[in-house]
């Protein structure tokens, strides 16, 4: 992990924030007159306001690397680190689910597994990463396994993994997002991320979704 520049980069961000001109009149800490800021209550912002906006890859990569460093200090072991990343992704996924379903005004709740996976494969990926996921497959060996693959996952692109933690897969973050969405729609499943490099795409990551028994039973009944 890029540990060398971490301390200095954090400091530089803080100093930048201090030197920015403050918004709306908070000129100094000693000022006791609160000039009214343009603060909008979160309940008054329109949900579609940020619909088409994009965040730069640099900002995301920076934020993600900071998240990794933060969690790295607080865990012992690779499994733990992946679990923490998964939890972080979970928090994102819960919110993404409701927001994306709402924004897609004509969409309904998903009640079938395939519809759900298709939703993740297209809509969720498109909103998060700007493109659809690269493939959606059903495993031939097991009834309850499905795979979503991404040839060039944005989370892993800028993370360099040293040899002693070579087991780590930053796709655990994406797996957390997918798991949250599946859980939210009442398709409880175990979601893990695996790297399966092929020639042209060395970072190709596959997210394996293993559905719980009850989901399959329900699918049977609904058929």
């Amino acid at each position, binding site marked *: 992990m890029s540990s060398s520049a971490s301390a200095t980069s954090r400091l530089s961000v803080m100093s930048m924030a201090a030197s920015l001109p403050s918004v709306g009149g908070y000129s100094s800490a000693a000022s006791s007159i609160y000039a009214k800021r343009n603060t909008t209550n979160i*309940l008054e*912002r329109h*949900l579609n306001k940020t619909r088409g906006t994009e965040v730069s890859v640099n900002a995301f990569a920076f934020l993600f690397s900071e998240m990794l460093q933060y969690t790295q200090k607080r865990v012992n072991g690779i499994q733990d680190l992946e679990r923490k990343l998964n939890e972080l992704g979970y928090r994102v996924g819960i919110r993404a689910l*409701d927001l994306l379903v709402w924004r897609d005004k004509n969409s309904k709740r*998903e*009640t079938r597994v395939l519809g759900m996976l298709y939703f993740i494969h297209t809509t969720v990926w498109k909103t998060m990463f700007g493109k659809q996921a690269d493939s959606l497959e059903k495993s031939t060996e097991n009834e309850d396994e499905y795979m979503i693959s991404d040839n060039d996952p944005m989370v892993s692109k800028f993370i360099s993994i040293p040899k002693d933690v070579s087991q780590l897969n930053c796709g655990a973050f994406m797996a957390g997002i997918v798991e949250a969405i599946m859980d939210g729609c009442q398709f409880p499943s175990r979601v893990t991320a695996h790297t399966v490099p092929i020639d042209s795409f060395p970072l190709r990551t596959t997210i394996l979704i293993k559905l719980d028994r009850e989901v399959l039973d329900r699918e049977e009944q609904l058929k």
Partner: protein
Amino acid sequence: MNATHSSSSSGGSGIGSGPLGQGNSPTCYFVIIGTKDNPIYEAEFVSVNTARSSSGGATIPEAKKEEFRHLNQFIAHSALDMVEDLQWSTNQMYLKAIDKFNERFISAYLTAGNIKLLLLHDAKSDDAIRNFFNDCYELYIKTLLNPFYEPNSIISSSAFDTKVRASAKRYL
């Protein structure tokens, strides 16, 4: 005892049954239920527009109305079973009147994240209730997007309360 309970859970604005003294003023009881069947938010409104004309005559004294208020919770929560039955048969979000209890109807709205919005009301138009539910869903999503809001926890924001009541006044 039930009076204190309901006032603490609905943000303390205590509208309930207004001091109008004009007979059976219809109240609506709205509750948001999380994924673990836990109530996240509750509110009671006095509705201004009702489909049926106010029944002249029987005036229920204030004290007795207080007793009925805790019934609302029971009625709404018992309707949860019906919601779960209907959940897989349709992929609509707005499930219309799913249950009936003593002249009052329970309408439900099921969100994508499996949060249930229940409204206990007297006869009202479907469209009005649908609009109200859509408004409340939007408010819920905005609350959910707050990174400091833990999903499935109680919504205690007074701004949220104000907005829900304003929406209720507009549609119900």
